[in-house]
């Protein structure tokens, strides 16, 4: 083989390698999801369990604001009350309402988001509509509970906080590169 031919062979190998690495970038997405699943890192969508007996701290008031959003699905989604005032350690239940405005059946998944961020460590949710996917028939309306408690260990400088949910559509061709929010 001449030098030029050998060069072309090397180039081809390197090009194939580069294209494979481009694919590898995308392959990292399911890989990370698998790792998170195995390591149990993303447990937003699992119910918490209460191990110890927690005392209600009646000397302290917290305001929890409730927020609801949808992303790209024909639903109307709102909390039944804008906010609740609770004590740390107290078990509370709030209701959300969701309405399918379209005349087709739609499956949605809600993903929670907390503010301030550190609320995530102190929020214990025993029940939530976000733990499963929600399937709504055409024009169906559904009321759904969230049962939660905020631990008294929440730093004392936090008194107002927000729990927010966003619904996105499952199994449509547009919205399914699937974070951990696959139906469970």
């Amino acid at each position, binding site marked *: 083989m001449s030098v030029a031919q050998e060069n072309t062979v090397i180039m081809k190998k390197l090009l194939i390698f580069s294209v494979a690495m481009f694919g590898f970038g995308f392959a990292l997405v399911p890989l990370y999801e698998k790792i998170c699943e195995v390591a149990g890192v993303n447990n937003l969508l699992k119910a918490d369990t209460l191990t110890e007996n927690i005392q209600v701290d009646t000397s302290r008031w917290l305001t929890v604001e409730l927020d609801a959003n949808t992303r790209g699905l024909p639903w109307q989604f709102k909390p039944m009350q804008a906010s609740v005032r609770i004590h740390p350690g107290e078990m509370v239940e709030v209701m959300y309402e969701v309405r399918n405005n379209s005349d087709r059946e739609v499956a949605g998944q809600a993903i929670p988001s907390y503010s301030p961020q550190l609320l995530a460590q102190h929020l214990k949710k025993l029940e939530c509509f976000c733990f499963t996917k929600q399937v709504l028939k055409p024009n169906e309306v559904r009321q759904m509970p969230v049962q939660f408690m905020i631990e008294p260990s929440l730093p004392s400088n936090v008194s107002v906080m927000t729990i927010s949910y966003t619904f*996105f559509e499952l199994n449509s061709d547009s919205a399914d590169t699937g974070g951990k929010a696959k139906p469970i």
Partner: protein
Amino acid sequence: MAAVHDDHAHGHGHGHEHGHDDHAHGPPKGMMRWLTTTNHKDIGTMYLWFSFSMFIVGGLMAFGIRAELFQPGMQLMTPEFFNSLTTNHGLIMVFGAIMPAFVGFANWQVPMMIGAPDMAFARMNNWSFWLLPPAALLLVSAFFVPGGAGAGGWTFYPPLSIQMGMGMDMMIFAVHILGASSIMGSINIITTILNMRAPGMTLMKMPLFVWTWLITAYLLVLVMPVLAGTVTMLLTDRHFGTNFFNAAGGGDPIMFQHIFWFFGHPEVYIMILPAFGIISEILPTFSRKPLFGYSSMVYATASIAILSCIVWAHHMFTVGMPVTAQLFFMYATMLIAVPTGVKVFNWTATMWQGSMSFETPMLFAIGFIFLFTIGGFSGVVCAVIPVDIQVQETYYVIAHFHYVLVSGSLFALFGGVYYWLPKWTGHMYDESLGKLHFWLSMVFFNVTFFVQHFLGLAGMPRRVPDYALQFADFNMISSIGAFGFGLSQLVFLTVVVKCICGGKKAEAKPWDGATTLEWDLPSPAPYHSWVTPPVVK
């Protein structure tokens, strides 16, 4: 290029001397020469000038940043514009200034140092270069579109990078193009080094600059495609309804950081390994001793490259990883300091008992060793999880990476330019101006960045246009340093232009301690060199 050639024995490269009869050897004239050239030296020159102009553009952005930070409060610009400046300063310096400069060096030096007539794929070499100006144009013109240039940081973190206007799309396209250019360049360099060495030039006889570039080029083909994939996912999240990184659609913004830094950390080594190579050429020359521990240098370079692929999450110690993962990345990161230390000790041992002289390239090399080591140490400090939780996203990190990138990569580039200018132009540069450039850079660099360690430890966040009053003094000092550093670079430009236009004629081997092959060629290096390969014993 060169002006006087009366006694020029090897002047075939200069068409104006010999008239029409050497059109087969010489370059065509005017603009077409540069558009169509496939000559590795021409292309190297274009890379270097492109990189220098991007250095000026990125430098002007830094000027804007430091001017706003000169005093607390908002003086000169909107916060959005400030963020565009930090974002594009980083992007342009990394992809527009440092990386193309090293590719320019590779183009000039690799064929001459291994005894090859040119790069393996001369036409592709031309394409790799000419991809760069359109990418630069995209980056710069993004400032003039509605919404302004991308402003979420050079790291493209979502959610900001999913939300911004079309400036972000231009940034993404620019990165695609720059990535394609780097991959083509690397393929060329790998092939040239693997397959075009002169007879007798075994791998373990290659100059260290060639070795470091070989390893760098492998890193580039390994991680550049991953970056291309990452920004492609951003693009489809922005416009085609996917939700890779969009939490509200089931995606995961933290995953972006993992994939980005899988590219990003090897990338920082892509910017330093060729610098290690340049330093390893300069030090033995001016110490008049062979490089200490040649083979351990090669192995250290390879281990750094391999380790650099498993440390990425040290950029994300605060995202909430499991403790075991954090510990893994902490120890792996600290492990990199070992081969890096091997290199520093080898360089020191190279100088030990050498008969050293302190021409400008040597000054930059010694400056490099001092300051890069400081940057390496602050890197190890950042690698300690509890410390990093304090300093992440503060000016401490800014100080760390400017010590490794400016007084590391950039100083090595300066040193390399001074070292090889006689070979490239055929003239000696002005030594006293060169030394002036070194000392100005050295002083102003430290004035700019040393105080940023203090700012970071005191908690000043990066990427914010305003700051609390207690940071005022150090910021003013840092800004003054930055203006001084920027202006000092005009000295560099002067030296280079002067040297191209004339000056004392350079001998084939102007440095008596130099040993590598390029010094066997006349100065300036003829347009076509090593057409018949040298035999290496």
